[in-house]
């Protein structure tokens, strides 16, 4: 019973700590946003556009509370943000947060397929590079991957489009309507990540191949493929979990650019569009929601890593 209570307390404590972290993160984000927007000058002027009619300006100021002192505006902004209320989009006239919610599924879809593609490419590739097979091909692939690490995903995307869309009409280039349109965007997201992951897996596999347990398996007459796949690989992938976690958390960066290139109707493109149109309510909603999502993903990834490799939990605590 006491153990049960202890466990309950520790869960409570960690949940409390976690929400404290999230709240402080959001507080900083929201404050940053508020003052960034105020730095541009009078939001009422931006809102009214070119017209600049004095009466219209005064009307807008009263409507959005811009005639209040700055600290009053700040606290009412905070209060609204706490309820995820960022007002109405200045461009579309709809609730900003609703617009963002609508875009989230397709971004999550792209994140999932991109990450899956990343793993599907770099796990076999990295494992192969970590073995002793086909030295020449490995060397060539090594150099290729090293170069690819320097080629940003958006360049890869443009070449893919040129080759597979413009020249051979393999894929549709924009949108997410047809059945295969996810392939190129996911490949682009993966190309931001795969070279590095493949290299780390390669190093880990080649190191694991020297370890006693693989030597033992070799001595017992295990086939080479068994040595690699059954014995070396599981330990190698364990060493790559930290990088995979970091990549999952950083996915959003690659996704923004990818969505813009392919006209993918996700949060990233929404962010760019609304930044360019100075649609502040939507910008704020996007930033706050992505911050929450990235935080959750980070937390989830850490828990998954802990489950895969419980030793790390002890290390982190020490």
């Amino acid at each position, binding site marked *: 019973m006491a153990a049960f209570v202890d466990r309950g307390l520790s869960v409570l404590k960690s949940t409390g700590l976690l929400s404290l*972290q999230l709240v402080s993160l959001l507080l900083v984000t929201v404050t940053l946003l508020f003052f960034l*927007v105020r730095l541009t000058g009078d939001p009422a002027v931006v809102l009214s556009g070119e017209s600049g009619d004095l009466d219209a300006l005064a009307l807008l100021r009263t409507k959005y509370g811009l005639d209040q002192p700055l600290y009053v505006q700040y606290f009412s902004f905070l209060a609204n943000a706490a309820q995820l209320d960022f007002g109405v989009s200045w461009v579309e006239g709809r609730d900003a947060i609703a617009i963002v919610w609508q875009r989230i599924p397709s971004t999550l879809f792209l994140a999932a397929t991109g990450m899956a593609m990343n793993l599907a490419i770099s796990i076999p590739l990295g494992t192969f590079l970590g073995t002793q097979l086909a030295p020449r091909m490995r060397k060539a692939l090594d150099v290729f991957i090293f170069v690819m690490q320097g080629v940003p995903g958006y360049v890869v995307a443009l070449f893919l489009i*040129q080759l597979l869309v413009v020249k051979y009409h393999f894929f549709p280039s924009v949108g997410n309507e047809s059945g295969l349109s996810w392939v190129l965007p996911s490949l682009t997201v993966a190309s931001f990540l795969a070279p590095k992951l493949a290299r780390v897996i390669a*190093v880990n596999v080649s190191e694991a191949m020297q370890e006693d347990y693989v030597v033992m398996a070799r001595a017992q007459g295990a086939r080479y493929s068994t040595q690699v796949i059954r014995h070396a690989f599981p330990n190698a992938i364990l060493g790559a979990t930290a990088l995979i976690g970091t990549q999952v958390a950083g996915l*959003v960066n690659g996704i923004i650019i990818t969505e813009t290139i392919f006209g993918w109707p996700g949060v990233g493109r929404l962010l760019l569009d609304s930044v360019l149109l100075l649609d502040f309510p939507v910008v704020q909603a996007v*930033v706050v929601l992505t911050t929450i999502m990235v*935080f959750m993903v980070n937390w989830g990834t*850490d828990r998954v890593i802990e489950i895969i490799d419980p030793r790390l939990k002890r290390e982190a605590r020490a």
Partner: protein
Amino acid sequence: MSQVRDAAANGRAIAPAVARRPIAEWPWRRIIIVVAGVLTALLVLASVSGWGGLDELASRRDLSRRLLPPGAEGHLLGTDGLGRDTLMRLLAGTRYTFIIAALATLIAGSIGIGLGLLAVVGPAWVRALVGRLVDLTIAFPSLVLAIVMVGILGRGNLTLAIALGVFYWPSFTRVTLAQGRGVEVLQYVSAARLFGVSRLRIILFHILPGIAPTISVVTAFQFASLLISTAGLSFLGLGPGLGVPEWGSMLAEARAEMTRAPWLLIGPGLAIAWTVVLANLIGDELAAGTRANRRSADS
């Protein structure tokens, strides 16, 4: 929050492991890297100084000679949609892409190393505070906020550099903190302290030189990724401005002409890749050197 991942990364030392692989086996690599580095540095110098009327050549339009393919007479890499010479634009663009990324690295490095050193010599609460700041900054979706900053504050070289620099400093802090605490307990630092050397002098002349090799490795890798982000943001239309031959904006322009002149993608694509690969190579090489030094010091 990221302690677990820290532990995972520390236990298995990701960065050196990445660095150790394959390029270290290349013959002549050091010579090649030095030559390429010097060549690139010269190009940057030429571009920054506007040597030989480079800017004028880069912006000269000739609508009768638009979208020429590479190898056309007088235009080694062809011309763009306004008849401007691609090679000249790439060279002139060095001043934007390379310098913005360098500036962003400088900003990130100054913040990161400064905070790191503060945490090394400061009391425990400073260290805790810096640790919280690092966690906080890492938790931000950095590119999202950079986009918002540039979009709101207006486009410009400096804005771009600042917007990127203020989110890329944590890796500098982590390295400074980890290495600096190792150096700080060494005897020569204790000796200096006993001799009454001021705290600032100890930081600048005793600790900083000790961690400089590792910092240089991080700087090379950070520069590489900041260059990718710089060109990426201007590819998205948040660069220094329209008509400026920044490599990312050149890519965006090339994209608009993609069906008619696909070769326009090659120039800026190669320029970005060349610089990033070179920076990564230098980083690898420096890391190998640092490790070799440490090994000889250990034995």
